[in-house]
């Protein structure tokens, strides 16, 4: 156990790609926590998908020992956090477990939307914040200008920001000193009853469920019998350890310390992040306030291309959900797609990541239906139904009104692109809340419907600003609007998987875009195919896919029979990527691509 004054706990927060994970590498390396030969870049990003995409998805914690200039050795617990807005929840709960934050800002980019979002969260969590300007090895770095910007835009001191290059290692010793000198030591009482925060939990195939905790008061020891206050479950601890970043067993953890335990817990679902852990015998009288639960905001259907894979898909989802409490799913049947699952995600990146993992790690071919947000359907009876899937829209005569989730979006953008950004937000039914300047960059705040943002807003924003804008959002509530369900009919048959909720004023536009896109995506058939978008019985957009005129091999003699036969067999296999709707075959990719709007 370590004396409180010799402990520092902090999270590393920043906008995407500003270098959090690389800084974590350097801290781990310089303190000799990991042997030089075992080091690798962004070593905390352990999942395949993190390494491949070069992003952090899950927050990770490491304990390092640092002999400071004052002659004492300090225990530093760092938590590397994800930058992408979908995983903001990981950041916020990590912050609850520590007392300070290193705010990393890329000195070539300056303050971005997630920089702001993270600072506000850190301030809410009462954190001491140490600004760190990274990437000063790059010629484009402008540390002085970025310091000013931090002071102007965020309003925190930045004159003593630490200048570093996480890549070359420049300035890292200063970061370590700043942590010790400028971040507060944790508080807590060793003799009080045990009170620890359940920060995270995950499934390890060898150890079972591993629980990450932060001890607030008291001492937890190997072999203790503990109680989880919310779930009221009791467990006997099997192992107690600290992460370096691999597990190193330890006998006890005292106040201010961070570590993990295992206790024959079967499922991650049996643990609740934010829960308070105490001793079975001597309980703390007051539980911690807990975390706001993460709520899925984007829903879509995932269906196996091959109906025989349904059971495999369910198994795979269960396994993934073990490690990702924010991913939810329940069974769904679709007239067109058969058996599948309605799944909830924190955002589109989260959706993509999960789908990618299902396809690659579990070798499944999936159809993804149109992503949708959750609508509140207020019935005339006074009841409120939550609509996760436009296909489930109740009979309109019973509906009083529909409310949709709205977000507050903060966008930072260089002045020259401001016009385009305003236009985009306006098109998406946005209401401007604020517009301020920070040097040559504008900060716009919009109230936007989540459903207009969920699909391709981020892509569009990137393209109209050539990648120079950054974006962050949070949900601010539900509001009534003139919302309708738009259905899509292919060859006069409704395709439920393509139906979507739209604002009445935008319906024609979306309908038109949708039928045009489908016309491109569906291959020509032997007959002509009408493609229509409709609201109720009224067709609002229509295209006709003309019939295939010619598809025949010119020469086919004795030597071609085998070749032709093999070609046909190959095409039959390729057809699995198609779905049959009545007489029409629709390629899988159409379900996602049809919803992307080009303008």
């Amino acid at each position, binding site marked *: 156990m370590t004396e409180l004054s010799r402990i520092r706990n902090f999270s590393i927060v920043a906008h995407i790609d500003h270098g959090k994970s690389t800084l974590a590498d350097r801290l781990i390396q310089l303190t000799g926590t990991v042997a030089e030969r075992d080091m690798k870049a962004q070593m905390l990003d352990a999942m395949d998908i993190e390494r491949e995409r070069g992003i952090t998805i899950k927050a990770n914690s490491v304990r390092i020992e640092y002999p400071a200039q004052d002659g004492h050795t300090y225990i530093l617990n760092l938590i590397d956090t994800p930058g992408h807005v979908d995983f903001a929840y990981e950041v916020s709960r990590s912050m609850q477990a520590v007392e300070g934050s290193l705010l990393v800002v890329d000195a070539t980019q300056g303050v971005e939307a997630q920089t702001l979002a993270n600072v506000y969260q850190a301030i809410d969590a009462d954190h001491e914040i140490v600004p760190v300007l990274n990437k000063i090895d790059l010629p484009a770095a402008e540390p002085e200008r970025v310091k000013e910007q931090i002071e102007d835009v965020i309003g925190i001191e930045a004159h003593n920001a630490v200048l570093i290059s996480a890549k070359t290692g420049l300035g890292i010793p200063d970061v370590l000193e700043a942590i010790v000198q400028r971040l507060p030591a944790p508080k807590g009482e060793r003799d009080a009853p045990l009170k620890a925060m359940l920060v995270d939990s995950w499934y390890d195939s060898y150890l079972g469920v591993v629980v990450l905790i932060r001890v607030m008061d008291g001492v937890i020891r190997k072999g203790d019998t503990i109680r989880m206050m919310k779930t009221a479950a009791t467990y006997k601890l099997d192992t107690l350890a600290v992460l370096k970043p691999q597990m190193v067993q330890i006998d006890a953890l005292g106040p201010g310390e961070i570590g993990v335990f295992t206790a024959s817990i079967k499922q991650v679902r049996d643990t609740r992040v934010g829960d308070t852990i105490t001793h079975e015998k001597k309980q703390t009288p007051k539980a911690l306030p807990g975390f706001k639960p993460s709520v899925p905001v984007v829903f879509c259907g995932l269906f196996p291309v091959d109906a025989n894979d349904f059971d495999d898909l369910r198994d795979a989802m269960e396994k993934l959900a073990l490690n990702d409490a924010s991913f939810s799913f329940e069974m769904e049947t679709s007239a067109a797609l058969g058996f599948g699952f309605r799944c909830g995600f924190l955002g589109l990146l989260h959706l993509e990541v999960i789908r990618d993992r299902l396809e690659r790690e579990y070798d499944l071919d999936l159809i993804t239906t149109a992503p949708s947000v959750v609508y509140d359907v207020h019935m005339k009876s006074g009841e409120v139904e939550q609509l996760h899937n436009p296909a489930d829209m109740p009979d309109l005569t019973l509906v009083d009104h529909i409310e949709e989730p709205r977000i507050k979006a903060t966008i930072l953008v260089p002045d020259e692109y401001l016009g385009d950004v305003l236009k985009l937000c306006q098109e998406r039914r946005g209401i401007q809340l604020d517009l301020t300047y920070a040097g040559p960059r504008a900060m716009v705040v919009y109230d936007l419907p989540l459903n207009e943002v969920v699909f391709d807003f981020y892509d569009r924003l990137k393209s109209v600003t050539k990648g120079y804008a950054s974006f962050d959002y949070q949900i601010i509530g539900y509001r009534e609007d003139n919302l309708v369900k738009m259905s899509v009919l292919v060859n006069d048959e409704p395709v439920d998987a393509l139906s979507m909720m739209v604002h009445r004023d935008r319906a024609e536009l979306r309908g038109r875009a949708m039928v045009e896109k489908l016309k491109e995506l569906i291959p020509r*058939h*032997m*007959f002509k195919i009408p493609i229509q978008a409709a609201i109720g019985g009224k067709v609002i957009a229509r295209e006709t896919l003309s019939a*295939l*005129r*010619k*598809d*025949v*091999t*010119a*020469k*086919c*003699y*004795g*030597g071609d*029979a*085998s070749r*032709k*036969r093999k070609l*046909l067999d190959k*095409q*039959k296999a390729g*057809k699995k990527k198609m779905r049959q709707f009545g*007489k029409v075959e629709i390629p899988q990719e159409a379900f996602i691509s049809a919803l992307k709007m080009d303008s």
Partner: protein
Amino acid sequence: MRDDWREGGFGLYVHWPFCQAKCPYCDFNSHVVSAVDQGRWADAFEAEIARYGAETGRRVLSSIFFGGGTPSLMQPEVVSRVIEAARGQWDFANDIEVTLEANPTSAEAGRFEGYREAGVNRLSMGVQALNDPDLRALGRLHSAGEAMEAFAMARELFGRVSFDLIYARQGQSVEAWAAELERALGLAVDHLSLYQLTIEDGTAFGARHRAGKLAGLPGEDAADDMWDVTQALTVAAGMPAYEVSNHAAKGAESRHNLVYWRSGDWVGVGPGAHGRLTLDGQRWATETPLQPGAWLAAAEAGRGENGREALGQPERLEELLLMGLRLEDGVDRARAEALGISEFSRNVSALTDIGMLESTGPRLRATEAGRPVLNAVLRRLLD
């Protein structure tokens, strides 16, 4: 079902793999070499024919086809030896058809008489185009004038003459093709093969096309219009399509190719030649070494053939349909049923409903609408 090949007849295909130059569009198994020891090739053909004859026993042979490559580079002596070797193994039908593919250069025309004496009674000429600039663009060694002379000579020597044209060529308009086809129909032919130019992988055109350098190819719509015009003009001239790309006056159809399209049996000798043989009720797909040298060596060593593939009922059905539906006549329903088409009866009905297939009497056929999209019909049918 055991001997259902009889419905298609029995033929012999002989592949001559050499050409004077490689045409830029051609993906046939053809090679340009400086010298060929034709005597050795004749020996090898004879040996292979004898080997297959021993397997099939005496059957009635309805056709022999010399294809290539450029068989009109064969010495008439070699052609004669092949025909005699076949006669030694099988009983020639009274009306046996013996076809040789010829390139219409003057040098080759000089050998036509020799071929007739050897027993060839039908000539299939690769005319390809009726004007010189287009022939040059196709990399052909003959002029239009030479082709016409060769054709006139062939008409005198052989009872039956066919020629090939390629359309949808670079820079060709629908009108230009219509005019060219009218001219072709005006010549006294009773059989025409009219192929839309296919850009094949692994050819010079394929590479140029991929590099975006094959200029002036008609677009999809123009090519489709050319198809329509082809059907209209040939019907008007009394030479409707009896197969996707083959047109003939009644009774002048290529009997040899009908063996393929009707899933008959045939022996294939020479490099890269395929065959189909039904032996003791089992149908086999035979294939030979592709390289001329490799085939010759294998044949000389006693077996100019690679491993055979045994065709089960599903493969046979697939072949029956993919070959047979190319024919105006379609396929015999009883044969298709014996091979299990009932498993696909829902698809047959669906395709019949949308007017792509029809059942007339004992035949199942692709309609006039179905034949131009036959690949799509087959994919749906065998789904």
